């Protein structure tokens, strides 16, 4: 009987989870005329002159983003948790969370304005850094930071809420005991709250690492807006897109997609099996 209940979901899981994965894998291993191609597609993608730079770009972005996300989210969650008045704490949390509504292309379009010194609400800040035009703001050297700020703006609030929930699960008695022993807020955070948050922090790190490798909409929109000052082949997903749509090389595109999928799948499976954060009864 249970089979009837799960059947619809299983059908979708097969059609839009398992099947596309297998199909992409199959395409990545065959030539454009059909026939087994071995690792040719992977080698061709790998040796493409744009591939390694794209890996470098994504790595730089993920590095900046991960560090700032981990440090700031943890800090802000601790601060929000330390606010004594309930209404204030929940309002601050909510304000941090609002930009989460603007995921997708709309948040990037909004940030185009913020990054353009001629119209930006923070043009003074941009000018202080020496940026007088939009093109200067998004010059290639700044991009990892720019993308990290956009991603932080939309995504951090959700994580702050999650961390706040995790902080709430620490028993009050433990914190009380620390206070009686004379520990201040900083020592309590370092010696009690942070160790108890460890699982959640690593969860955030792994999920963000997986999501970061997928960078697409930010460089795509910025590239469109900056006349390709931000390159059209900045990230790996953009490159896969170019392979499929500009070079009609579906097999090479599948090879890149498979490589990215393996990274995500590996991180996710590792965490589900080893993380122990999710109920699997």
């Amino acid at each position, binding site marked *: 009987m*249970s089979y*009837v*209940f*799960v059947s*619809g979901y299983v*059908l*979708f*899981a097969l059609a839009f*989870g398992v*099947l*596309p*994965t297998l*199909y*992409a894998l199959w*395409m990545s291993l065959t030539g454009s005329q059909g026939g087994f191609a071995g690792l040719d597609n992977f080698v061709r993608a790998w040796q493409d002159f744009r591939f390694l730079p794209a890996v470098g770009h994504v790595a730089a972005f993920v590095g900046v983003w991960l560090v700032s996300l981990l440090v700031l989210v943890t800090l*802000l969650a601790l*601060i929000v948790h*330390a606010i004594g008045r309930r209404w204030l704490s929940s309002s601050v*949390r909510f304000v941090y969370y*609002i*930009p989460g509504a*603007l*995921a997708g*292309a*709309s948040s990037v*379009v*909004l940030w185009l*304005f913020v990054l353009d010194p*001629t*119209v930006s*609400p*923070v*043009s003074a800040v941009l000018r202080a850094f020496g940026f007088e035009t939009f093109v200067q703001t998004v010059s290639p050297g700044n991009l990892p930071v720019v993308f990290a700020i956009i991603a932080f*703006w939309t995504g951090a609030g*959700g994580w702050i*809420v*999650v961390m706040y*929930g*995790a902080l709430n*699960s620490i028993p009050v008695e433990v914190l009380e005991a620390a206070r009686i022993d004379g520990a201040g807020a*900083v020592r309590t955070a370092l010696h009690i709250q942070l160790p108890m948050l460890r699982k959640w922090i690593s969860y955030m790190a792994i999920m963000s690492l*997986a*999501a970061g490798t*997928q960078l697409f909409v930010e460089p795509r929109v910025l590239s*469109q*807006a900056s*006349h390709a000052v931000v390159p059209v082949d900045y990230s790996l997903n953009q490159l896969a897109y170019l392979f499929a749509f500009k070079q009609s090389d*579906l097999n090479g*595109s599948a090879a890149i*997609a498979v490589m990215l*999928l393996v990274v*995500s*799948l590996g991180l*996710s499976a590792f965490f*589900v099996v080893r993380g122990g*954060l*999710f*109920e*699997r*009864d």
Partner: protein
Amino acid sequence: MSATRRRRRRELTPGAWLGRATIVLVAVFFVVFFVIPIVWLLIASGKSPHDLITTGPFQPGTLADLAANWSSLVTFQDGIVFRWLGNSAYYSVAALAITLVTTIPAGYALALGDFRGRKTLLTTTLVVMLIPNTALVLPIFLELSAVHLIGKPLAAILPFSFFPFGVYLTYIYFSTSVPRDLLDAARIDGCGEFAVFRRVAMPLATPVVALVGFFSFVANWNNYFLPFLTVPGKGSPIQVGLTELLSNVPAFNPTAAGVTSIELPTLAVATLLAVTPVLLIFLFSQRFLVAGLTAGGTKE
């Protein structure tokens, strides 16, 4: 309680006071950081292109300019913006309906049923749920183009309907708040399996149906990469439409200067329009959200 607190506050040493001030400063800084772009967007929508550049960023615009921006947006390509919004609504709601019909029973069976393959299905759901949804976009595109669905509404609706996070939320909900005994009691009273689900489980499931519905709608509405590939052109949802508008903004794209060009404030109005539905839902369902985000992990 409040008396001791007051006394402690009076005894603050300069160092502790400085620490507190720093914390307040950091909290306030980030409130400003998260809010300013949104406030600015509201203001910019009501300015003329000229005022946007020449007046201060927080100097309010006028209703007349807002109306002018609005009319230049709705006349762009004969009101294509409504078509984009309509597409977004159609894809999001249709996928939401399919998601609910498939995920609620599945989560129910995973939580309270007992069948072979249950553990495998649960683990697979978790693993897929934690994969960023963009990772499957190209493979799904390749699959859909092999079956010639690209460009049809189904090419967005069907992939949107696969929502493992919803199954996980339902699973958590049923396994923590509906006791098996309750179902057994109904069975003893002669209820068949469908009747148990319909008469006992469903009436209890309202909160999780709302939760799954919310997250599914937001994810569908905000999705860019998938519809960008699978429903290009006239089938675009508003997220893809926004970038189409962007390529007609001379300020960003000098070659686009022509009869159909879009000014910056018009783009701001369009952005506002694109985020309003989700923003409204956010404002009205704050409690849901927090519950859903923290439901992710219950095991400590």
